[in-house]
């Protein structure tokens, strides 16, 4: 009698692939689908965990696009408060696939958000990235001017990227129910006012997340046919849920949806790769060792383990100084990631 499991490699069996492995170096977990060369123009976007990926790529001398660079000499942690150096442009954290689709739509002028300027006191904020200006701007007009210029930079990023790295973060979002515009944070968290007659909670399903990313892919491919995608799912659990479920249940739903979509996209498109940062940090192989005491923040060891696994597969060798953009030194990126959703802890009882 023959079994279809006969002769499969050891990484197909739980006993040999998980409990017998060291969490710091799980063998055979990831096989890259395509090369990422140090010279490839890489764009990064996604939830706050994606900031780790961009930062580590830059440290290794990869050519990560920075369309809105910080002023030379300005400390990285200060620039990060203003959204500089976190991603390939100052779009802040892009938590949902809908938000990513909207961003590309705005950049290529196929989408215009509703109620795009929020207020806090006498200051005005870009509702589509309220975290990148901690004190807001002086006028609504200025917010719109800043956004126009930012979107040109976003378009240039999307047109020139050879590899687009995206980390799926959330399925939950707040929308303008009249137009469907999705915001990165709930109105009233950083700025704006929550109005139950206007704002509506959404928890996206697999089909919606999938469709959003497919639509995003089509938009960018129309401008940049050669671009490839590297997807990850953030292992960072939800800070809070607006659903009526326990946050643990809501988190499992959210991550399950995102992981399923990433798998679907991998199966659908040859230009999509999936890197298992989520599996390394958040599944039983790590025995919870890669979370801090709050059981939510990913520890430095966790980040390092993820990146080691990544660079084992994508390893173009030691960086030469002349391989860095403009022959520059290794960047002094901010150590801390910037996460708006941590603000929700302030509302916890």
């Amino acid at each position, binding site marked *: 009698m023959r079994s279809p499991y006969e002769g499969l490699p050891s990484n197909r069996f739980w006993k040999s692939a998980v409990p017998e492995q060291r969490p710091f170096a799980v063998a055979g977990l990831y096989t890259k689908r395509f090369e990422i060369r140090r010279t490839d123009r890489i764009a990064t976007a996604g939830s706050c965990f994606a900031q780790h990926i961009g930062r580590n790529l830059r440290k290794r001398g990869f050519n990560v696009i920075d369309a*809105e660079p910080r*002023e030379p*000499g*300005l*400390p990285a942690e*200060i*620039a990060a408060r*203003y959204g500089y150096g976190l991603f390939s442009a100052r779009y802040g954290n892009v938590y949902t696939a809908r938000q990513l689709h909207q961003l590309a739509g705005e950049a290529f002028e196929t989408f215009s958000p509703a109620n795009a300027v929020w207020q806090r006191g006498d200051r005005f904020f870009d509702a589509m990235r309220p975290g990148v*200006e*901690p*004190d807001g*701007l*002086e*006028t609504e007009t*200025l917010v719109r*001017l*800043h956004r126009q*210029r930012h979107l040109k930079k976003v378009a240039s990023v999307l047109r020139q990227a050879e590899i687009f790295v995206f980390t799926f973060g959330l399925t939950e979002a707040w929308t303008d129910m009249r137009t469907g515009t999705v915001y990165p944070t709930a109105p009233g968290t950083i700025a704006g006012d929550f109005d139950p007659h206007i704002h509506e909670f959404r928890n996206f399903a697999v089909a919606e997340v999938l469709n959003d990313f497919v639509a995003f892919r089509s938009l960018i491919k129309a401008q940049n046919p050669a671009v490839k995608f590297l997807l990850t799912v953030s292992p960072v659990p939800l800070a809070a849920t607006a659903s009526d479920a326990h946050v643990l249940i809501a988190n499992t739903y959210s991550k399950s949806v995102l992981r399923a979509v990433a798998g679907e996209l991998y199966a659908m498109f040859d230009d999509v790769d999936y890197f298992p940062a989520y599996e390394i940090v958040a599944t039983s192989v790590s025995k919870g060792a890669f979370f801090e005491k709050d059981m939510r923040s990913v520890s430095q060891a966790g980040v390092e383990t993820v990146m080691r696994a990544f660079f084992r597969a994508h390893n173009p060798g030691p960086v030469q100084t002349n391989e860095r953009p403009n022959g520059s030194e290794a960047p002094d990126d901010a150590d801390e990631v910037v996460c708006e959703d941590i603000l929700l802890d302030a509302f916890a009882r």
Partner: protein
Amino acid sequence: MRICFVGNSHLATAKFGWDAVAPDYRNVEVSFFGAIATVFADVAVEDGKLVPKSDAAKQSFIRTSGGRDSAIFTDYDLVILLALDFGLWNLLDLYDKYRWGDQNNTEGEYELVSTGYLHEIAKARLTRSTAIRFRNDIRKSGARVPKVWIYPEPMPSQSVLTEAPAQKSDLSALRLEALRRAAHWHDERSLGTAFAAARSFLSAAEDIVLEQPAHTITADVFTQREFSDGSIGLASLPSPRGDFVHMNGRFGELMVRQILNLAAG
């Protein structure tokens, strides 16, 4: 009271000022250690001393101090760090690269940034100035640390708006041109606000960052012509016509009196 002035080319203004007011302050001893800005790259604060690291710096200190090639800060009650990259002057080229707030000029290539971010850049720039670096090094250097005050570079002369500047170095010309352009568009006050924000941030309670007397300033960012005509610098005496960076002896007198009166408490 013993006071040590350490400064770049603006030190000449202070020296002229001191020469004029010294008879009124008979209980004050003043020393000067100066060098032009490019030479100050070869000067360090080590173990409570101002140490020249090049022969040019050494010779300049000997010339300005009347024979000494280094300053021992514990010999003084008060150290004045004059200019040394700390001033609006060090921020002017930001107007070439950025626009912020409600500025009027929308011509040319520039990055649009928030006022808050621009002020952070200004703080970072001035934090890296020689004046702040020396202040920090002096404070770290020993048990008996004198008071250390910073006196900023004077605002450029308002004559820059009506006359051709003599400053020919790329950076100086660039900065003066940026200021002229800002004034043309009525954007100059936003530069003054950026400097004020940075100065305020960097003023510690025990180490004062002084302010240029208000009555010498016009439109927030210019020194009035009467304090710059006949200006003097370390490199040449008097400064060439069209020097809009250095001030004259009258300004120096005001500056020194301001410092001495504040020191007297």
